[in-house]
Structures are given as structure tokens and as C-alpha cells.
């Protein structure tokens, strides 16, 4: 393991360069529409079921925790509000992150990695076709679209799960839940949540593509790359999530009661 900072910085630099390149080529014609549809379908198919399965317990846990806490301090009526804040603003982008990086990103990385070691990418470049435009851009766009979609889905499923556990299991009142829900929740919450998802999709796609295009030595290298791509994406996304949340809380004042 090389611990000198220079190669690491160089990696960050080329990752950043790939991100810019993807952004630049996104607008360049011809647009690879077929590839986008195929990749969208592919990423969606590997990630929808796991995220639904993860988001139900997530909503439930938040609901239960908050439920017992609010009962202790006598604020049961704020259950709905608290759970919607927690689920929409934080939980669902995080769940989306985990799934996009773990299921979608790893699949993208493995696919591009095996193409790289089979020299398909080189062959494409030699034929005068940019592999970034042809292969990476549709994959990144697909990851972004799926992230937005998943985020919406996870929000709905999470809130529904919270409602179910709070109202049915802990005997909360549906009216109070919904009333506090609309008292605290505001539309910008959803927008920022979707914006986060969009950014996460982009980052996950770019990191996965970067690791896939640069595997180290042979088929074993692809496995390592997939592994690293997931870990790097996690770290990066949690960091970005922190920054975006902090900025959002500064810019958009919380709704008063």
C-alpha cells in the first residue's frame, strides 16, 4: 500500500476530470438514447426491490424510536412531523445512496471494468468514438434518474411505514400524525431531497465509471475496483450529504409552528 499523498491526489484529480468530462459530453450530440434506456432499466431493475425492502424497516425504526421518545416527553402529536423530517430529509437520500452505490454503481463498475480488460474501451477510442460519451454518460444519467426515482419511492414507503408503525402499532391518532405532518413539512424539503438524490446519482455513476475504466491488472483487478468504488462512493456521498444538509438548513428557514 502506497501511503504517499501524491498518487492519491492524482487519483482525485483524474476522478474530478472525468466528472467534468461527463458533464461536458452530456450535452454533445449524438445522444445515446438507446443506451440510456437500457442502462436505466438495468440500474432500476437491480435497485428497486432492495431499496423498497430497506426503506420499510428504516421508516419503521424511525417511527418506533420517535414514538417512544415523544411519548416520554408528552409530545405524541409531533410524531408525524418528526418522522417526515427524518425520513424525507435524511433517511431517504441515505438509503438511496446505499442502494445506488451498492447495487447500481457496482454493476456499472463491473461492466465497464470487464470491458476495459477486454480492451473494448481501447478499441472504441481507436475507432474514434469517445467511450465517455458513448458508455459513461448514459450510465451516469441512468444512475441520476434512478436515484431521483428511488428517492421518491423511499420517501413514500418510509413515511407510509412510519405512519403504519406509529398509528397502528403504537396507537397514535391518525389526525394528529397528519396534522403535524403538514405543519412542519414543506415542499422545499422534498425538492432538496430530490436534488440530493440527483447529485448522489451523478457521483455514484462517475465514481463507478472511473474505477471501472482504471482497474489494476487483470480480472482480479476488476473485483477490487468494484469493491473500492462502493467504499469510495459511500464516503463521498455521506460527506456531500452533510454539506448539502448544512447549507439547506442555513438557506431555507425551518417552518414555524
Amino acid at each position, binding site marked *: 500500500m502506497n501511503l504517499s499523498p501524491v498518487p492519491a491526489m492524482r487519483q482525485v484529480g483524474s476522478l474530478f476530470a472525468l466528472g467534468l468530462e461527463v458533464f461536458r459530453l452530456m450535452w454533445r450530440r449524438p445522444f445515446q438514447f438507446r443506451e440510456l434506456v437500457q442502462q436505466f432499466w438495468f440500474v432500476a431493475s437491480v435497485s428497486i426491490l432492495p431499496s423498497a425492502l430497506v426503506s420499510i424497516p428504516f421508516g419503521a425504526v424511525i417511527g418506533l424510536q420517535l414514538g417512544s421518545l415523544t411519548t416520554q416527553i408528552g409530545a405524541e402529536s409531533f410524531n408525524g412531523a418528526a418522522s417526515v423530517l427524518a425520513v424525507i430529509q435524511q433517511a431517504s437520500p441515505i438509503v438511496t445512496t446505499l442502494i445506488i452505490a451498492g447495487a447500481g454503481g457496482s454493476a456499472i463498475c463491473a461492466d465497464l471494468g470487464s*470491458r476495459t480488460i*477486454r*480492451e*473494448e474501451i*481501447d*478499441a*472504441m*477510442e*481507436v*475507432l*474514434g*468514438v469517445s467511450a465517455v460519451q458513448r458508455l459513461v454518460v448514459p450510465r451516469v444519467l441512468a444512475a441520476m434518474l434512478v436515484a431521483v426515482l428511488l428517492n421518491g419511492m423511499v420517501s413514500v414507503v418510509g413515511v407510509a411505514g412510519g405512519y403504519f408503525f406509529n398509528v397502528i402499532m403504537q396507537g397514535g391518532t391518525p389526525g394528529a400524525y397528519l396534522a403535524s405532518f403538514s405543519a412542519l413539512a414543506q415542499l422545499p424539503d422534498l425538492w432538496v431531497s430530490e436534488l440530493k438524490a440527483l447529485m448522489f446519482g451523478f457521483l455514484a455513476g462517475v465514481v463507478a465509471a472511473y474505477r471501472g475504466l482504471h482497474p489494476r491488472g487483470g480480472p482480479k483487478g476488476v473485483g477490487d475496483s468494484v469493491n473500492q468504488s462502493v467504499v469510495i462512493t459511500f464516503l463521498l456521498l455521506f460527506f456531500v450529504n452533510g454539506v448539502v444538509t448544512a447549507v439547506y438548513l442555513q438557506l431555507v428557514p425551518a417552518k414555524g409552528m
Partner: protein
Amino acid sequence: MGVEIAVEGLGKSFGPQTVWRDVSLTLPPGEVSVLLGPSGTGKSVFLKCLVGLLRPEHGSILIDGVDLVGCKERQRYELRKLFGVLFQDGALFGSMTLFDNVAFPLREHTRYRESKIRRIVFEKMEMVGLTGAEDKLPGEISGGMRKRAGLARALVLDPEIILCDEPDSGLDPVRTAYLSQLLIDLNAQIDATILIVTHNINVARTVPDNLGMIFRKELVLFGPREILLTSTEPVVAQFLNGLRHGPIGMSEEKDQATLEAERARYGDGAELPEIVPQLEPSPGLPVRDAVRRRKDRLVQSLHTLAPAAQQNVLSSLTEHEMARYGLRRSTRAGGVL
């Protein structure tokens, strides 16, 4: 006619590991050249530098007068249109059928109608002997077929420069012979500059006009086939004969002591085999212009060659050519007037 590639002082390393340094050679336009070297000496890396996939740290690569190393991205994409590259394992797109693979460059770079694309693709597939396999996926065919399909894809835009990375590896001797013949026939038909990278001795002896060899991170020699095939340079002699004794060891270069011991046992320098005649284009094809151009070049610089090489060049000339160049055959070995 094909395009000249002039490589000057090229050096490439990956981090601390130098692959090769100070490589200078000129691939004469329209001629067939072979670059030999043991496995792992960086032959594939050299090819990738020539098409701009890897960036060498030192030196320049002039293609048709434009420096590929220093030029802009856009220019590099333009230059690449001159190339047809056959990668080591064919590098076919795994999700496309052979037909779509071969049609890919046409669909990307031309506005031909589908019927015209079909005609061209079928023609190239027939050329490499793959008629009937158009609908197969790359995963369903043998390595040799993948390689031939890769060649068909490389040829479809009528390149001026053809680069082949080990066209013979994984092929049986008969298929290798067919492929060698195919490359020579191609050269006769389209007069492209061809560079073949290989460690196959047979290909090196029969196919190229010019021959070079990379060893110990350097280009040992590069020049007309007569020079390498008659060279007494120990590495070249060992390699071209596939011998165990010589500077090349199993895993790396041998040390001095082992070399001394071998020298005592086998004597100095291996006997080089006879120069076998070069492959001719198949009957019915035009003669290769490259042969004439190369002879002109060789005869002009004849006095700079080693006697054995001179002898070889001379014996390859017909009476008619001797007269044209104003040479007379002498009875003394190597004598030219």
C-alpha cells in the same frame, strides 16, 4: 500509399517502472514491418503509444508530419481515423454480433445506407473467412475467429496504417499462415503501412520488409529484414532461433557468469538459419509497390550494410534489376561495384 510513422527518442514508464526508453525508428510508408520481443517487453505498450492511447513521457511520434504526442485531443481523434488496429484478443464489443461489430465504424463515421453497409461488411467478413458467422456473439466463437473478426473491423474504413498485436497468438500454424498471407495480400491491394507486433519467429522471417526487436528496455535493432535475419547480435540470433543459450533467460536477463558458462559450452554466436524468401501476394493480386520502393532504398544505402546483409540484398535482385541499378554481380562474397 500508406503513411510514414517516424518515432524519435520515445520513452515510456509506468510510475518507477521503465517499459522502454529511447526508441527511434521509422516505419516506411506502405511497407510491412514486424517488431519482435520476448513477452512483457512492452510491445503492446508501444502499439498503444502509436495510436495515442498511452502517452509516452519522452520523444515524439510523427504521423504524416503531425506529432501525436504533443497534439490536441481533436487532432488525435483525426489522426486515429488513419489507423486500423487489431488488438491482442480481437477486442470485439461483447454485446454486439459480429456483423454489428464490423459495421460499427461504418455506422459511426459514415452516412452509408444500410444496404451499402451490409455489402461492405460481408465483403470484409469473406476476406477474413468468416462468412456465415455474422450473427454470432463474440462469446460464442473461438479465439482465432475473434481475432479475424477484429481484423475485419479494423479494415472496414480502409485504413492507411494497420497495427496488429500478436495476430498469431492462440492460432494454429495453418491459421497463422493464412493470416500472414492475408496481411501481405492486403498490403498488395491497398498499400497500407503495416506494423505487426509478435514473438512468432516464423512470421518474423517470412512476412515483413523491415524487422526490429525490443530487448532490455531498448530497441536492439530496426531495419530491412536482411539486416536482422543475418545479424550476429546474440539476442537477435537467440530469439530468431528459439535457443536457450543467449542473453534471454526464463524470467529475466541472465547474469554474466551463466553467460560465460554457456559460451564455453556452445561456442560463440549461433549459426543463423538461411534467409527464407518473403511471402508473395496470392496469384492474381497486383505486385506490392513496397517491394520496389524498398529495393530502391536498400540499393542506395547498400555500402552501409554488413557484408552478409549486402550479399542477401544482392541475391534478392533479378538480373533485370541489377541492370536497372547499374550493379554487376561479383564472384567475391559481398563485392559490389
